[in-house]
């Protein structure tokens, strides 16, 4: 009798618990089978998978959600960092990658087929800081910036910082450095800049998407670094302009090549990007010559294989993706400013057009 009672109770337990898991699975798996049989052709080709730069994520989430409304194409973009985007593209697990850094030699040699870079947006890496008592905007020169990140300046009221920020009351607390823990194009832009402006940085640390930091805390993604800065008073770190703006974070003015202290903004990034762009789209905007340009800025690229016929990809899928990127570099640009991204200059758009037109499927160009 007792056993039966126990069994009944247990049966009830299965009923309740598996109604959450198993039963709903039956429901969903049956829908999934009907879905996949009726829609194998279009459901399969109606999602595009992308991964990479977390810098692009807010803009892409907006752009792709708008594109979905008009075209019904579902774009799944996961912000896993630029390095991750490149690796997943190399492994052919995603349709497109997005990176804030062009491929380097090592990455290029790992690829089985040529990849093209299409500039989609431009952004700035800002020096965000958390000094609750300070009202004025911090000003930094390139050498002081490098010294801070080299760990040579450890206090906020260091004479070198005070010399630039005259009349500003700096706290006597220690400087905490926040940096990216993951491979990232943001890191690449920032360290490329530091390598250009500081001899010591380029010999001791170098540039790259993930480097061995002399000091500091790591955070995963722009989110992680912005989080560290927000949460810890006395922290300084580098993040994308959009992330700093979204969080109402204080960020520093940085002195550019022509000696001006520039506030990072859409205008100053667009100014920095107003230079000659090579035909392959790969160009660094750091330490720009432009007089009003913010020195730590750079393009962000979408990366796709030049030859789209690989791994049984259909023509349809390839052309949908190319059209999506075309849209993103044209109509999609209207969403940039609202999210604090710098719209592409006409020169960059036309370079992108030419590159997109060079993409082929089975040797034939996809866009006519």
């Amino acid at each position: 009798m007792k056993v039966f009672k126990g069994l009944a109770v247990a049966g009830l337990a299965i009923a309740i618990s598996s109604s959450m898991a198993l039963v709903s699975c039956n429901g969903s798996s049956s829908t999934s089978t009907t879905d996949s049989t009726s829609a194998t052709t279009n459901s399969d080709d109606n999602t595009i998978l992308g991964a990479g730069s977390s810098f692009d994520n807010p803009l892409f989430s907006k752009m792709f959600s708008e594109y979905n409304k008009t075209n019904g194409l579902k774009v799944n973009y996961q912000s896993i960092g630029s390095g991750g985007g490149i690796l997943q593209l190399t492994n052919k697990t995603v349709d497109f990658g997005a990176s804030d850094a062009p491929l380097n030699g090592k990455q290029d040699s790992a690829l089985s087929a040529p990849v093209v870079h299409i500039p989609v947006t431009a952004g700035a890496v800002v020096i965000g800081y958390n000094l609750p008592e300070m009202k004025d905007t911090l000003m930094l020169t390139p050498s002081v910036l490098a010294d801070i990140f080299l760990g040579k300046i450890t206090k906020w009221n260091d004479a070198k910082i005070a010399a630039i920020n005259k009349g500003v009351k700096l706290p006597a607390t220690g400087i905490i450095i926040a940096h990216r823990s993951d491979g990232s194009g943001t890191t690449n832009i920032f360290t490329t800049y530091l390598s250009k402006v500081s001899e010591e940085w380029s010999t001791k640390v170098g540039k790259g998407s993930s480097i061995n930091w002399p000091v500091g805390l790591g955070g995963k993604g722009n989110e992680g670094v912005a989080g560290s800065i927000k949460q810890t008073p006395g922290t300084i770190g580098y993040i994308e302009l959009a992330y700093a703006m979204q969080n109402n974070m204080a960020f520093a003015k940085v002195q550019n090549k022509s000696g001006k202290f520039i506030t990072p903004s859409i205008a100053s990034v667009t100014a920095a990007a107003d230079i000659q762009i090579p035909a392959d789209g790969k160009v660094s905007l750091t330490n720009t010559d432009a007089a009003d340009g913010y020195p730590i800025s750079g393009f962000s690229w979408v990366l796709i294989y030049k030859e789209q016929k690989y791994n049984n990809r259909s023509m349809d899928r390839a052309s949908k993706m190319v059209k999506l990127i075309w849209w993103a570099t044209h109509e999609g640009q209207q969403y940039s400013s609202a999210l604090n991204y710098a719209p592409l200059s006409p020169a960059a758009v036309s370079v992108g057009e030419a590159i997109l037109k060079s993409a082929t499927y089975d040797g034939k160009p996809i866009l006519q």
Partner: protein
Amino acid sequence: MNAHIKYRIGKSRGFQALTIVLACACVVPLIAILAYIFKEGITKINWHFFTNVPKPVGEPGGGIANALLGSVIVISVASLIAIPVGILCGIYLSENKTTKLAYWCGLCVDVLQGVPSIVIGIIAYFWLVKPFGSFSALSGSIALSIMMLPIVIRSTEETLKLLPDSLKEAAFALGMPFHRVILKVIVPCGISGILSGVMLSVARIAGETAPLLFTAFGNPYLSVSITKPMQTLPLLIFNYATSPYNDWHDLAWGASLVLLAWVLLLNIITKITTRKWKVQL
């Protein structure tokens, strides 16, 4: 003499009080976590929250429908794989205690139980994601099913070992073949112990993030195709919790509450229904 005895009794009482205080202190963090998640999460949860997918930054609203559906699908597929395999393997271990294979098999189950979840994620990436060229919910499910296996196997084995031999002998004496004895007599008798293991394993994997990072990958849209990337609750929480946007934080808190409620509910149901089975997991 008297003073010495008093001292000893006092020491004993003091120790008793200390252990009780320490033991009760263990509960404090759990209550703090539950209370905090509840406080943060409850205000974000409404009908809209369950039926919508996350919105891009800057647009208010948005929900976790994709992650909820994704979690259910990924866990269900994992259960479909792990439960039959796990129960059969558990039966094997309880029926063959002395063979060499059983020894190695038992050893492997112990090993599997100790494998860190992140390592299972790597394995699933190399076995299923890289060769097939696509992140998929299925690869996530298989990674999770590997995590479920040891719990299901051990609970099955331990439960069946607890059953009296006379039960099996009586069934054999009636001329029942081996498989019928197992499936019609032994397993039904131990079903609630086995189920408790199954439910605990489901509760355990429901909150796993690490194996899904490189497998299920995430998806901002509702998706039911298991060969495509899929969003799950723990992934959504991890991604949005580390983001700086308040909208996304709100989603993460709400999702945390949902996940916590789900996992705790499974645990509590298991505890209540299977109290009499003293299975050591």
